[in-house]
């Protein structure tokens, strides 16, 4: 037992620490901040989906905000018009979005990455006007207002016992989101380490070579699109739950850009990347808007310009600088730094690549 614990790779300890951190978080921050973290986790889920598509299968989607919109509206319409329990609508929205994404992927797989980027970008731009059209179903420009969820009794009891304060709606949403995030990250982790993940990476690294090795290119590309849309659908559905409101303007092009920023800054083709990316993409504009005006060394004119420009400038700069200087994102930087440090300290070579880590598979 002790031997086994010592042999556990550090990444498993990191996962454990991260999970405990996220479970405990709402007991130390206030309800409003819990709501913010819930939204960061929601972004992380959607970014994980984008990561499966961009990072692992090498296809670029600039329209994942559209799939989030689809998931959110499926849930909102089911809950609002047909009085379905919202928590039940989340998996329905995810699966339905996944199926639609799969169907969208059928023509998409014929396209080169560039054309796919172009078509999905157009989809993202058109989405708000497409939502407005069936006004009797979607509520048109006004959107659909939802009642904030009430935490169930067992959750209230448990939370009250630990935190000492009654559980708010935001905190309940946070835990629902966290549960979905854990489930979907675990699924993604297993997916990319096994047969289908290897197939996707092979396609990404050389389509012709992959086809020659007997990989069903069309099948795996569409599959990646479907899975990726499923993640976005669940994220969109949770987004509706978190904000109690969906409208066409909730899903502008900039949402799709925000997802891409998160995927890129966290690190493509990595499992912790989307989590880091989601937190960055959500908090970066908020924090930079608060931080810049307090810095006296930044000329007032530039500071006020940055403030007025909102997240767009920050996102643009981050996208460009990350792609130029750190194409593997924050996680890539940390891993490289850790590897170098380890080598220098112990003089041991890193574990050979290709060797799968042994040990538990639960998160």
């Amino acid at each position, binding site marked *: 037992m002790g031997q086994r614990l010592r042999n556990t790779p550090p990444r498993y300890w990191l996962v454990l620490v991260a999970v405990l951190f996220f479970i405990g978080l709402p007991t130390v921050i206030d309800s409003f901040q819990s709501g913010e973290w819930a939204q960061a986790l929601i972004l992380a889920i959607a970014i994980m989906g984008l990561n499966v598509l*961009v990072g692992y299968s*090498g296809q*670029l989607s*600039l329209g994942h905000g559209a799939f989030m919109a689809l998931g959110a509206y499926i849930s909102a319409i089911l809950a609002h018009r047909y009085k379905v329990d919202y928590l039940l609508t989340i998996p329905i929205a995810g699966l339905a979005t996944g199926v639609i994404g799969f169907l969208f992927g059928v*023509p998409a797989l*014929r*396209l080169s*990455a*560039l*054309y796919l*980027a*172009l*078509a999905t*970008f*157009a*989809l993202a*731009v*058109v989405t708000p*006007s*497409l939502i*407005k*059209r069936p006004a009797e179903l979607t509520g048109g420009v006004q959107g659909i207002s939802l009642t904030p969820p009430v935490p169930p009794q067992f959750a209230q009891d448990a939370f009250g016992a630990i935190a000492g304060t009654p559980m708010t709606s935001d905190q309940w949403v946070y835990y629902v989101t966290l549960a979905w995030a854990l489930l979907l990250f675990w699924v993604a982790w297993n997916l990319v380490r096994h047969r289908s993940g290897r197939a996707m990476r092979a396609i990404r690294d050389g*389509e*012709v*070579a992959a086809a020659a090795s007997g990989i069903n290119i069309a099948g795996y590309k569409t599959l990646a699109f479907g899975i990726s849309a499923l993640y976005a659908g669940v994220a969109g559905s949770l987004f509706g739950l978190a904000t109690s409101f969906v409208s066409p303007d909730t899903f502008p*092009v*900039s949402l799709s*850009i925000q997802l*891409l920023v998160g995927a*890129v800054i966290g690190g493509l083709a990595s499992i912790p990347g989307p989590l880091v990316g989601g937190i960055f993409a959500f908090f970066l504009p908020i924090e930079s808007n608060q931080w810049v005006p307090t810095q006296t060394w930044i000329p007032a004119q530039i500071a006020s*310009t*940055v403030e*007025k*420009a*909102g*997240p*767009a*400038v*920050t*996102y*643009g*700069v*981050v*996208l*460009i600088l990350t*792609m*130029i200087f750190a*194409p593997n994102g924050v996680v890539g930087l940390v891993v490289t730094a850790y590897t170098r440090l380890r080598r220098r300290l112990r003089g041991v070579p890193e574990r050979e690549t290709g060797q799968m880590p042994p040990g538990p598979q639960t998160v």
Partner: protein
Amino acid sequence: MQELLQQVISGIASGGIYASLALALVLIYNAMGLVNFAQGEMAMLATFGAYTLISHGVSYWIALPVTLVLAFAGGIAIQRIVIRPVERAPLLALVIITLGLATLVNGLAGAIFGYVPRSFPSPFSAQTVDILGAFVSYRDLGVIGVSGGVLVAIYLLLQRTTIGLTLRAAAHHPEASRLLGVHVSWMLALGWGLASAVGAVSGIMVAPIILLEPNMMQTIIIYAFAAAVLGGIESPLGAVIGGLIVGVTVNLAGAYLPFVGGDLQLAVALAIIIGVLVLKPNGLLGRPTVRRV
């Protein structure tokens, strides 16, 4: 019948605008196999430049060429500063960088000029003239004339001058061109400059119609995408034909299909993009691509 003719002519006017922007996309695609997602935003910024000049009392016909020169220089600067360091990066990274550029330029314009839509002067009057019974505005005719002039100028530059020949050579066979003494990297920069100037024309032409604001090119770039894809993304002539077809189709769909109306015209462009990519991915004038191992 007159109404139809009227709709077609105003569709051709919009089509000329889309064609200019699509041509800009094609120029950069030909130079480096990349779709520049920032093309529209660069055009928007150039239009704000023209606006600033005009609002300081510069005459329109002086502001226009000055803006085009500035846009040309700006395009070269962007290529040198942002694109050149990553010239050899994978396509995915390049696309993401142009998208970052688009976001950055959009945000900067918003911060500097604000998001309040401004009216942009047009040198052509809004009065109409009777052509075969259809009432066509001088403004539409002016847009058609200016876009047509730009397209012809670019065609002559590419096909009839040494610099155009060098540009095309550098784009198609960089290694061979380098051996023959062509500065390939600077030719790429020149391509970016040209594209930026051509795109700026579309911005300046469209601004009087849809009002000037940082997000004004967001829909225009989608029409330009549709035009470029329809014409075949590597064909300059295709971009022009594609632009005209998209302009007329979208205009007619908006006028005669009650389901489409004014607010789903953009969805028509999306349908064109997806339809072409699925049915005829190389567009009308593009050549089929051969994949090499």
